[in-house]
């Protein structure tokens, strides 16, 4: 069970002055249960790529297979794909429209044609998962704070019980506390519900802490694909394309260069701390 992209190309507004190749020859396999970080700076094609995964955009050439089925087959039901691959857009709170929080979350599952009771259950469950209390269910979504609105919007997609959850910059414009809350909730969802998660971001720090695989996009191409440790080894190349490794990578590399015997693979502050402590113990400093 996986999503396979085979030589996918995509061009915007072909034949006009706005023509732009947004994706070039993307080959990827996304396996079940993975937690993937998709990174690239603005205009690198990451948002375009994820819109292909649930069929919102159609590749100019190439094929996409979901669980072995070609999604461009004539009798393939796009609507089913969209309920299996849940996509949370950037600033998802801009899509809220209903009169109450609960009704907004119910929009997705009721479009799936589920019985009313099941729709209710899923809505309650999804709202609980994102930490929206029962006292807020009957408020208008426009009365909530920015972070709460965003969580309601995410719940709207979760209530569809997707097998794959894709989030486009879910932390954009949030304060550090709101950011950590949302990322922690996503990580929890990944662990408990065993769903595949693809997290689009341009912050290496956010991503390094959570994901098990990183895909780096530049000018429509997937330039790196591997574990965060493996990708961050290329931190000099990452800089060249306008990205950067987490700050601890720089610290560890600098230390190693100055003769401190630490591994440069640490990608989070915790790992780096442990590594340095270990070195200090070995040398008898502490």
């Amino acid at each position: 069970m996986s999503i396979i992209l085979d030589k996918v190309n995509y061009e915007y507004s072909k034949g006009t002055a706005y023509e732009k190749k947004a994706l070039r020859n993307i080959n990827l396999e996304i396996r079940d249960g993975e937690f993937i970080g998709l990174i690239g700076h603005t205009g690198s094609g990451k948002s375009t790529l994820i819109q292909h995964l649930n069929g919102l955009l159609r590749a100019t050439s190439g094929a996409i297979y979901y669980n072995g089925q070609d999604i461009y087959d004539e009798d393939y039901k796009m609507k089913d794909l969209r309920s299996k691959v849940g996509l949370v857009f950037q600033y998802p709170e801009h899509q809220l429209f209903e009169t109450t929080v609960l009704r907004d979350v119910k929009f997705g599952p009721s479009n799936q044609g589920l019985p009313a009771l099941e729709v209710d259950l899923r809505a309650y469950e999804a709202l609980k998962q994102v930490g929206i209390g029962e006292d807020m269910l009957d408020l208008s979504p426009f009365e909530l704070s920015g972070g709460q609105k965003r969580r309601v919007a995410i719940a709207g997609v979760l209530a569809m019980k997707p097998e794959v959850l894709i989030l486009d910059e879910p932390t954009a414009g949030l304060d550090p506390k709101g950011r950590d809350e949302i990322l922690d909730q996503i990580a929890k969802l990944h662990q408990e519900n065993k769903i595949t998660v693809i997290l689009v971001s341009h912050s290496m720090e956010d991503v390094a802490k959570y994901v098990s695989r990183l895909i780096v996009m530049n000018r429509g191409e997937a330039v790196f694909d591997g574990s965060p440790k493996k990708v961050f080894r290329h931190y000099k190349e990452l800089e060249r394309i306008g990205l950067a490794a987490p700050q601890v990578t720089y610290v560890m590399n600098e230390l190693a260069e100055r003769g401190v015997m630490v591994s440069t693979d640490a990608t989070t502050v915790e790992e780096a701390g442990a590594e340095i402590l270990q070195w200090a113990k070995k040398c008898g400093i502490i």
Partner: protein
Amino acid sequence: MIRDITIGQYYPVDSVIHRLDPRVKLMGTLIYIISLFLFKSFTGYLVALVFLGAVIKLSRVPLGYILRGLKAVIVLLFFTIGFNIFLTPGQVIWQAWVFKITREGLRSGAFMGIRLIFLIVGSSLMTFTTTPNHLTDGLERLLGPFKRLHMPVHEVSMMMSIALRFIPILLEETDKIMKAQSARGADFESGGLIKKAKSLVPLLVPLFVSAFRRANDLAMAMEARCYRGGEGRTKMKPLKYGRRDYIAYGMIALYLGALFLITRYLWK
């Protein structure tokens, strides 16, 4: 899908037409529009076609891109031609039940259809080749004399430029919200009229909210830069006619003259 709506948008290439003074283009468009109503024979269209073709060629905007703008008004076009064909009295050449097609109807249907297409292509050419900023500047200067009559010329042109500027933004926003709701299983295409209208609610509510939010932000940004309307406001780049612009005026006069001569005296 929604990106295909090209009418009213600026097309960024560098051409002689793009560099013309916006006043020339505004006046030219106005004269061109009026000129289309000055003749009753098809030969007039030939002259207009030559003029329009030359301007399109000079503007370097691809013809396909311009014609795509017609898609937005296809319903209007359809109705205009339909009503003309079926409802003009005259010599009947085909009849079924209450519908009848007359020779005069066919002629006037074709005549009106072509006129509408020429009108739309001609006026959209102005927005393709002029940035909203230029357009406002031009309009403000051209309407300048009306300020004496206490007409809020500056405000009107500012409003127009903001409206124009927001067309692509709101289109993009519509596209985004449509995609976000499709990702939640919304269906904008199938179903009857009532179901279709209902399915627009998840699109229109967020769109209105976002339009208000943007308007609010814009008002705030303008106030933060001390905008107080047109009183005493100067321009960084005041409009100035150059040689090119006088030549363009000459061309427009030439077109008008040719149109007049040909439709009145040569082939009536």
